[in-house]
């Protein structure tokens, strides 16, 4: 065990794992986090807490992690390299580990121009690849990147994000390989709607044996409506939603589209379970946490294994 996290254990035991995501509030109210946590508890192996996603200022990821941890959920801290230099990153890694956070997701972060403060200075001292490497060095060698010994190495199950649909096509698999070389233990993918393309990606990854070196959690997001699907396709960079998916949900009357979205998401998870090399799913029910139980249960993934 590298970190001893619940997620790591569940994956190591060969279970098909489930993670979800919680966005902290745009304010200091802890009740909002607790309410979301109530929908997540018991349904996942770990829950991501996002780090100022789309550069909109929110409660810090670490604070969010502690709040859900108090509610009995294993936290997974997301860290972007947009806002902190390597000094702040190392310090927060040590702090998060000290507070018992055992899972980490290393990200670049959306450019600040999308958020509240487009005039902010962008840091990008190291990139997300180097952050993976930095954490691995601290965890496995017990030293700072400077070489100084740590008074207690941070323990993290190290993750990163991949987009199987991103441009340019030819570097998708080499890029995953690079992240594994840097030290990633698991990856969570961008939400998948184009299953054919994803299966092709997995095939390429398997050819290189990458699925054996890293745990791949396939990302899914239930669609609330045909409108949401179209919006995401238009607005979210690198989002590949095939026409057929949109047509299927659009064929329903408006009041039945949400139910259809959930049904489609469950089907998709069932299909993902059969793809060789997919070790779990990451269910991003954006501002729709109350549906997690229905989705995860519907896919036959409840109850979650309890390991000691």
């Amino acid at each position, binding site marked *: 065990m590298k970190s001893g996290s619940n997620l790591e254990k569940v994956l190591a035991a060969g279970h098909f794992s489930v993670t979800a995501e919680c966005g902290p509030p745009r304010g200091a109210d802890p009740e909002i986090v607790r309410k979301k946590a109530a929908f997540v508890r018991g349904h996942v192996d770990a829950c991501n807490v996002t780090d100022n996603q789309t550069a909109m200022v929110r409660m810090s990821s670490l604070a969010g992690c502690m709040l859900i941890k108090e509610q009995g959920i294993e936290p997974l801290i997301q860290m972007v390299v947009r806002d902190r230099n390597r000094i702040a990153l190392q310090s927060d890694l040590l702090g998060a580990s000290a507070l018992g956070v055992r899972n980490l997701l290393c990200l670049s972060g959306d450019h600040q121009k999308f958020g509240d403060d487009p005039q902010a200075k*962008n840091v*990008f001292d*190291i990139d997300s*690849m180097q952050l993976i490497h930095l954490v691995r060095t601290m965890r496995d060698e017990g030293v700072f990147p400077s070489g100084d010994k740590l008074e207690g190495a941070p323990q993290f199950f190290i993750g990163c994000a991949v987009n199987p649909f991103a441009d340019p096509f030819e570097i998708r698999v080499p*890029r995953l390989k690079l992240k594994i070389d840097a030290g990633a233990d698991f990856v969570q993918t961008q939400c998948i709607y184009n299953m054919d393309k994803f299966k092709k990606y997995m095939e390429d990854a398997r050819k290189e044996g990458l699925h054996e070196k890293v745990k791949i959690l396939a990302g899914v997001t239930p669609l609330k409506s045909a409108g949401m699907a179209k919006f995401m396709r238009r607005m979210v960079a690198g989002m590949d939603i095939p026409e057929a998916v949109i047509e299927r949900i659009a064929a329903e009357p408006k009041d039945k589209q949400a139910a259809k979205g959930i049904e489609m998401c469950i089907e998709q998870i069932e299909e993902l379970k059969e793809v060789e090399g997919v070790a779990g799913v990451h269910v991003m029910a954006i501002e729709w946490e109350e549906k997690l139980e229905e989705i995860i249960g519907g896919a036959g993934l409840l109850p979650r294994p309890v390991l000691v």
Partner: protein
Amino acid sequence: MITGTPKPIEEVLEMLEPYDNIIVAGCHGCVTVCRVGGEKEVQVLASTIRLAREAAGNKINIKEVSLERQCDPEYVESMRPYVGDYQAVLSIACGAGIQFLAEKFTTTPLLPGINTGFLGVTERQGEWAERCQGCGDCVLHLTGGICPVTRCAKSLFHGPCGGSVRGICEVDKEIKCGWQLIIDRLKALGQMENYGKLKPYKGWSSARDGGPRRIIREDMIS
């Protein structure tokens, strides 16, 4: 070259309000090439200021000069005999040139007439684009001759990020994704193996982050 854009004339006029006897100083270096601070621009700016001030009933006297370079002491010195006869100098050289004048002529206020931009190239007449941030430790040999520090909006060393779509950067549809450019070029050069290598953390101490920089070439100091 170092590029720049003229400051809005309203801003310049506001800066000049306290003065009625000034020098407008241009430079024959980069700012001449990018047509923001050369001899011609001095003439036009001086004329514009005079017209605006006279129309406002507040005439101003302007001496127009253009130095070979505002960033070399020997040319700057040529202004010394007369600089004291004026209340201020409005310089339309780059920020370095303006500061050099300020440093040499300690009792004369120096005013910037342009906004200094970046180290860039002329992509076509009237259009300049950034290419280098002077990071002090060039890696172009590893990245197909395209700078990741400058051309990637996040200065990533292992791009592209998830925001790269069909060669366009997430930041603006007018910005090409630097990493797409790097990959295209590495492919064309048959150097894709460079892509798959983990690069060491960038040392930013040789960049501005290490404090103001200085280059000393002992061999050239006489």
